[in-house]
């Protein structure tokens, strides 16, 4: 009797460990690190016909968040549109050249434009023009696909 009392009570960790691993698996599957590049403070326009972008290219699209004052935000920080887009285009061209693909004109990567719904056209147009000057011709304009956000 006294020998039994002296043994420390050891809880069975197996069920809790199973549960924790299941939770970890769930979060690992749903985590999206790209989400950090999307500025969630923007109020995107609502467009019923908007469809999810199916991009299967080798290079990642250029994501530009444009607020209602026409400022380009990258990972939450305001960046000068001209220099940022030019440097991204240069990096992409360097990558393509390294792979033996000499692209001088159109870049084979779309620009994802996440623009606030209230932004005036001339501000958006400025960003688009800068993209076009740097070789981006494919644009994908983000919108919410339903009435709910």
């Amino acid at each position: 009797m006294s020998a039994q009392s002296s043994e420390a009570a050891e809880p069975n960790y197996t069920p809790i460990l199973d549960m924790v691993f299941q939770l970890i698996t769930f979060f690992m599957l749903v985590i999206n690190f790209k989400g950090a590049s999307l500025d969630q403070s923007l109020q995107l326009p609502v467009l019923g016909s908007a469809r999810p972008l199916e991009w299967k290219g080798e290079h990642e699209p250029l994501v530009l968040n444009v607020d209602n004052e026409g400022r380009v935000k990258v990972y939450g920080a305001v960046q000068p549109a001209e220099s940022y887009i030019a440097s991204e285009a240069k990096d992409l061209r360097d990558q393509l050249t390294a792979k033996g693909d000499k692209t001088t004109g159109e870049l084979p990567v779309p620009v994802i434009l996440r623009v606030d719904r209230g932004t005036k056209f001339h501000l958006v147009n400025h960003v688009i023009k800068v993209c076009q000057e740097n070789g981006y011709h494919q644009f994908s304009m983000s919108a919410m696909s339903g009435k709910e956000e």
Partner: protein
Amino acid sequence: MSRRRHRKKNKKGVELNLAAMLDMAFQLLTFFILTFRPAPIEGHLSVNMPPPIPQTNVESRVTVGDEGAGGVIPALHALHMYVTATEGGDVEQVRLESSILANGPLSEGALAGIAKRLRPVFGEHNVLYDRIQIEVGRNLRYEELLKLVDVCSQQKQGDGSPIGKVSFVEMQR
């Protein structure tokens, strides 16, 4: 006695200390919970927008707007839509070449009307337009522009293929 004890130990088997593994698992779980931020699913409207081209076809010697007088369709490839905007950013007027498509803010009905007017322009087999260029007033709100781009990009050419090229430029006048 000692033999008995030895047997007992073997029966018990190896016991792993799960506490350390559980600690690590909880740390991972904490990380994932803290970094979890479910984002709403966004849709996209894809357009191919090469830089704007000159609006007059030199070979045809006909400029935009002149085709109405003689009733001759010029050898142009871009159909021009003009959208003027109010100071507040709403649509004031939508014109297709010289004909008015809509006046005032864009409602569902106005958009349907624009789509209806555009359909025959691209539906015929002998059309000369393969893209739409929208000239936009500088104050137009992005949301309104996107509605128009959506209507334009949904138009189908004579062979059933969608209009792939919709571009927009700032209205100069």
